């Protein structure tokens, strides 16, 4: 299993347009619009993103973003809300009017918030070792809300990312390279298992009482069962870019799909280029590897050739049918004209070689239907 990209919302949000050129050059105080087109200027740019999560109550994707601004006091924190169905920016007018302001403390002191048990939002903290229930609106801790402090547990731990399952008394949390799985967090917490991550963690999100999702800094996405624990699948974002600044992941529990927020550098003119990507847990075929003979190539032999149909992360794909076709002139015989992919994406073809030396070419073809 892997991930099928459903749709991408490029430039999912905007910065406030300055409305005029800055600085105003020339003695007259402005560009002559008859002579040139005034370049765009924006009053904001992304400094960092604290939280990205699915909020089931409003069925929205929420991003808390700290901005650098040209207006006083030089920074701003806004809550961006996107429609979870299509990624449309729901509170555009509000944000552009700077009315979705949430205060700096929520975004400065919480990080990596994600959905957890009872449809509430939980986050790790930058100014304390506790993991708390927070408000989806302001990212501030809920007054007298739920919390745990892993620093008081054995071994003492400080986490930057956490998935909270209060129903089963479980916590899966990571600081950097390992996902620690804790049980009995309400009574005597015990770290019962660990999972090593394939790369530096970028974001962690909750799916259910069993599963969580991980995205690494290079865009590799993994699903884990944190109760066993065990890795369930590995895949990757579509078209990972070297210049993507950071990946954030969340799971839309209503539509059962993965949403990735790709933080990208601003365009040359300062326009915001962040994008939202929606994935369904099913792999999109990425490539067919070349058929490679895996038996001796003697004249007169029945020769087996193996190839793989794989996704972006090299994960095998099934069920697909791969057709083989020999390029003329054909001297032997392809005894398997088509073959179905196995669980690891492998297809095998058999070729009956003639009793004399020859050169043959086998081409493979698979048809993928996009719905």
């Amino acid at each position, binding site marked *: 299993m892997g991930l099928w990209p459903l749709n991408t919302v490029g430039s999912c949000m905007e910065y406030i347009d300055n409305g005029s050129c800055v600085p105003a050059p020339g003695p007259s105080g402005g560009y002559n619009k008859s002579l040139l087109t005034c370049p765009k200027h924006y009053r904001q740019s992304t400094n960092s993103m604290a939280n990205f999560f699915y909020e089931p109550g409003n069925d929205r994707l929420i991003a808390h973003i700290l901005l650098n601004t040209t207006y006083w006091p030089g920074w701003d924190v806004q809550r961006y809300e996107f429609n979870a169905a299509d990624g449309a920016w729901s509170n555009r007018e509000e944000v552009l009017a700077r009315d979705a302001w949430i205060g700096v403390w929520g975004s400065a002191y919480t990080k990596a918030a994600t959905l957890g048990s009872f449809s509430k939002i939980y986050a790790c903290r930058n100014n304390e070792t506790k993991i708390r229930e927070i408000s989806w609106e302001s990212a501030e801790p809920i007054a007298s809300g739920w919390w745990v402090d892993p620093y008081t547990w054995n071994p003492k731990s400080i986490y930057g990312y956490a998935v909270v399952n209060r129903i089963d008394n479980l916590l899966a949390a990571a600081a950097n*390279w*390992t996902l620690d799985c804790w049980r009995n967090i309400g009574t005597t917490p015990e770290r019962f*298992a*660990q*999972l*090593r*991550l*394939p*790369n*530096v963690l970028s974001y962690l999100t909750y799916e259910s009482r069993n599963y969580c999702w991980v995205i*690494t800094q*290079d865009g*590799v996405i*993994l699903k884990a069962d944190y109760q066993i*624990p*065990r*890795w*369930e*699948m*590995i895949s*990757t974002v579509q078209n990972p870019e070297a210049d993507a600044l950071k990946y954030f992941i969340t799971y839309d529990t209503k539509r059962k799909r993965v949403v990735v927020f790709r933080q990208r550098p601003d365009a040359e003119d300062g326009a915001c280029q962040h994008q939202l990507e929606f994935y369904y847990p099913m792999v999109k075929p990425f*490539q067919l*590897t*070349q*058929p*490679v*003979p*895996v*038996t*001796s*190539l*003697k*004249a*007169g032999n029945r020769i*087996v050739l*193996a*190839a*793989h149909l*794989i996704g*972006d*992360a*090299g994960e*095998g794909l099934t069920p697909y049918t791969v057709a083989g076709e020999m390029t003329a002139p054909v001297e032997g015989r392809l005894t398997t004209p088509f073959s179905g992919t*196995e*669980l*690891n*994406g*492998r297809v095998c073809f058999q070729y009956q070689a003639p*009793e*004399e*030396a020859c050169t043959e070419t086998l081409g493979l073809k698979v048809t993928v239907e996009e719905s």
Partner: protein
Amino acid sequence: MNEKVFESTKLAQPVTTGDSWQYLCYVSTWDAFLAQSTFEWSRVFRDGTTVKFGKPSGSYVMLGREKGFPAYWSPSTLKVYPAFEINGLPNPNEVLNPNWDISASLAPSSLAGKFIDDINQVYLHQPSANQIDIYSLEDGQKVGEIVHNAGEYFSSLAWVQLGQVAGMCRTSGKVMVIDYLSSPRVLATGRIDPFKVAAYDNAFHLFFAIGTDHKTRVYCGDLWPNGLSAPVFEPATVYGLKRNLVRVRLTGQDGEPLPGWWVNWELEGVGGGILGSLDKYGNFTDADGYASNLYIGPDDGSAGQCKIKARVVLP
């Protein structure tokens, strides 16, 4: 030399400049290979397709495990851990050697591969370039040894089938299939091109190597012919009107017999017509590398010279 059935045009190399592969292991559930370098974990397919999916951490050292999976030795715990089937990453929640700590002197490295069989509770260690020691996982006692005289450490020890491992030498390209369970000994030897990392593909019984030129190469277990002897009559005197036994022998680079190869026989006149006839015009070499034929001398009493030509067609 083993028969090379494939050489890639694609280059399987780490993305990071200056990085190079250190370990390679076949992963049965992927039907592909897990390659580890200093900065990368990648999945490599036989045709050279390489997909990077991570970066190693935690100082784990890869070694071979039964059924065609990697396992990992940790220098901090001295334990060996299995790998997850999905992504080949070490699973620190399960220990394969709970009763015995494998010390650093017995630990695997990229120069000398090690092997763990936790079903039969056996650990294979290379004390020298010519020998493999067998340790019991139950108590850490040495229970046997195999002298193979390869003259070089096997950089990889990989699972072949129940009770058998394949050893592969990086510089000389020597490969061996070794029984470590029922009666420890070398079962077969062969040779592949020198490589950077290599693994044994236990699904199709192939040697798979990534060369220093980053090309992938696939070798099957069959050895490649190096020489075909001239036809020899037994007994040496040839009679007319009689069936005379004639044999050729097909051998590999190190003189080993090559069974199952197709030999074509032909009669050729020497300054005259063809004398007599052959019983067969094509047959296979036997287990000892010999192909036999019968030459029936002329029945009209004619005398003269005639040549017997035997050929093996190489793909």
